[in-house]
């Protein structure tokens, strides 16, 4: 017998192996086609725009486009002494076009980010330039203002030559590239972002820990109570879970205000005097309290779903073998709940670190977080590239936590309600 006849054939005469492979491929395509619409939709409307945020955050081509000749002539300039006449001439020509197109104000703003003092001398230059004579632009420009004779200002222009920059990322961690090209910290009184990052991390961690210590006992109680009682108590967890975030924040604003119920209670019990009511809103305390209550259900639900599966007979067995309830709890029960703890803590942490609404409403100045800063730059200063840079830094942090979550718990194990 030869090999040909040994192969199992289907009724069509095709080898079975091939036929199965074909069927599998068909099934694969079928499965993929079902996922494709959503995947495509998300990639176009969501994943690409996030990628675009990256380009926006490093893009610096605007100035490159505004001063093409200047940067070309500057290529050979070593930056030690004042540039030659032809750089001045190129700058004059570039700037003249910008003034004619009324774009020179934007250039002033951009260069002022790089070095303070550009705004006024560029304005003055635009005014005086109309009377410039042909030739010897170096002297004419230098005569406009004494800052034009200082080499630092020309170096500042040269620094903006590359079309890409990582300066926005440096700014996000309170660093900048100084005139010598070294990366240094900004002066101490202007280090606002480092404080914000630390505060965000601090509040996210604090809220996670608080949530854990509050959720663990009640999840345990819900898991061991008979169904008819636990269902009733479960409403206390699920009703806030389904209620609008803004409604819950509003209720905290009412409770925590100076004439609010919590303060009334403090006065009534004699903890504080009536004219000495503590400020609990528009600061960090308010953010802490409100965020803990709002995120608590996200800790209770994963804990509960794990605790529900732990058989009570395990604890009984431990106790019957002589373990005290305390030891039985820490040696038997607690280790079994660790998957739930991991899921709950990471979920709460991920949600807390990017929180926006609650800190914006009850946080005030000392309780605002990194997302509030992002929103501020998107809406008020319109520095979208900086907002993108900050957003991506935050996103990187979240993705790292998400990756750990995926490794520990598995993304398929997320449960809702």
């Amino acid at each position: 017998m030869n090999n040909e006849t040994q192969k199992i054939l289907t009724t069509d005469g095709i080898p079975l192996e091939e036929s199965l492979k074909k069927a599998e491929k068909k099934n694969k395509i079928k499965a993929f086609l079902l996922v494709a619409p959503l995947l495509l939709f998300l990639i176009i409307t969501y994943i690409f725009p996030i990628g675009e945020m990256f380009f926006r955050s490093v893009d610096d081509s605007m100035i490159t486009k505004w001063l093409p000749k200047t940067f070309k002539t500057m290529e050979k300039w070593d930056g030690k002494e004042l540039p030659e006449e032809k750089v001045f001439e190129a700058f004059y020509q570039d700037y003249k076009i910008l003034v004619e197109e009324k774009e020179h104000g934007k250039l002033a703003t951009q260069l002022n980010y790089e070095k303070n003092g550009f705004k006024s001398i560029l304005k003055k230059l635009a005014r005086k330039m109309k009377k410039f004579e042909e030739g010897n632009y170096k002297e004419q420009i230098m005569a406009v203002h004494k800052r034009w004779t200082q080499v630092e200002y020309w170096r500042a222009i040269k620094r903006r030559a590359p079309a890409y920059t990582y300066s926005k990322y440096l700014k996000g961690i309170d660093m900048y590239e100084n005139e010598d090209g070294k990366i240094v910290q900004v002066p101490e009184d202007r280090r606002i972002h480092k404080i914000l990052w630390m505060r965000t991390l601090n509040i996210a961690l604090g809220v996670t820990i608080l949530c854990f210590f509050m959720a663990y006992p009640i999840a345990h109680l819900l898991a061991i109570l008979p169904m008819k009682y636990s269902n009733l108590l479960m409403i206390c967890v699920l009703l806030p879970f389904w209620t609008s975030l803004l409604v819950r924040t509003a209720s905290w604003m009412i409770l925590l205000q100076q004439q609010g119920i919590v303060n009334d209670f403090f006065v009534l019990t004699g903890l504080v005097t009536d004219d000495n009511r503590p400020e609990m809103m528009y600061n960090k305390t308010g953010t802490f309290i409100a965020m803990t209550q709002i995120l608590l259900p996200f800790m209770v639900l994963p804990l509960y779903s794990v605790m529900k599966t732990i058989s009570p007979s395990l604890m009984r067995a431990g106790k019957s073998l002589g373990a005290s309830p305390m030891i039985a709890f820490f040696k038997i029960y607690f280790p079994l709940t660790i998957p739930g703890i991991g899921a709950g803590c990471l979920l709460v942490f991920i949600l807390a670190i990017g929180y926006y609404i609650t800190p914006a409403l009850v946080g005030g100045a000392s309780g605002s977080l990194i997302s509030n800063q992002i929103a501020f730059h998107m809406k008020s200063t319109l520095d979208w590239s900086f907002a993108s840079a900050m957003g991506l830094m935050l996103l990187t942090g979240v993705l790292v936590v998400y990756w750990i979550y995926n490794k520990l718990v598995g993304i398929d194990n997320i449960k809702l309600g």
Partner: protein
Amino acid sequence: MALPKYTETHYRIWHYIYLTICAFVFLFLIAPLFVIFPLSFNAEEFLVFSDGMKRLDPDAFSLRWYHDMIYGTKNPWGLAAKNSFIIAIFATLGSVLLGTLAALGLSSRYMPYKGLIMATLISPMIVPLIISGVAIFFFMAKVGLAATHTGIILAHIILGTPFVVITVTATLSGFDHSVTRAAASLGSNPINTFMKITLPLILPGVISGALFAFVTSFDEVVVVLFLAGLDNTTIPIQMWTGLREQLSPTILAVATCLIIMSTLVLVSAEFLRRRSERLRGIKN
């Protein structure tokens, strides 16, 4: 929960301390919601319990803020409610359609790159809303859909689909695929099988995903803040503006209505969850 008779005293004490802690946590969770309810009937303009309310004087209570909510002079709430419902309904339909299809594909054992694709599909739920807001705003501004209903609906479909994908894949995980094969062997075409066999069985998961998508859209404010123009104002936007500018009791009247709505959602979600567990043969 009753303790056995032989329990030692200090464990008995510890047990009661434990129950007290639990009671406080439950109070902490639920009590803030109940502050809103009585204050929305306040006859006065302040957001504190007036002396009359503490004495339960009937004159201290009124429906004026509910009246203001419906017939108020400028009345932004009517338009906001209309927009919110339109946006939420279309966003839910879109999320359910795309999400269910994707979940069906993901549950197939032939699906390639399952982990990577699942992670991508769930990502809008994990990425902080502020970043989603910025990214979606850039996209919508580029294609000219900023400040339109369509733009907001598409944004909410992005945010709502992960919930549908998760709930439907969860339902499908207990799904016995031999029933669809049985249908096929009896001559049913795939579409017929889906409508007659698969869909009725996964329906609880689909509806509970739809509820999540609806609530997400109805409550969403961060992304809408970036996208909405004056004509696209929604209930959360109005609440946000109100809470930032001046806290008026009208907001509390709206909030009370929202709490009632969320209670209804909770009841239906619970009902669906139990029905789904019964159908899949999970017993409590």
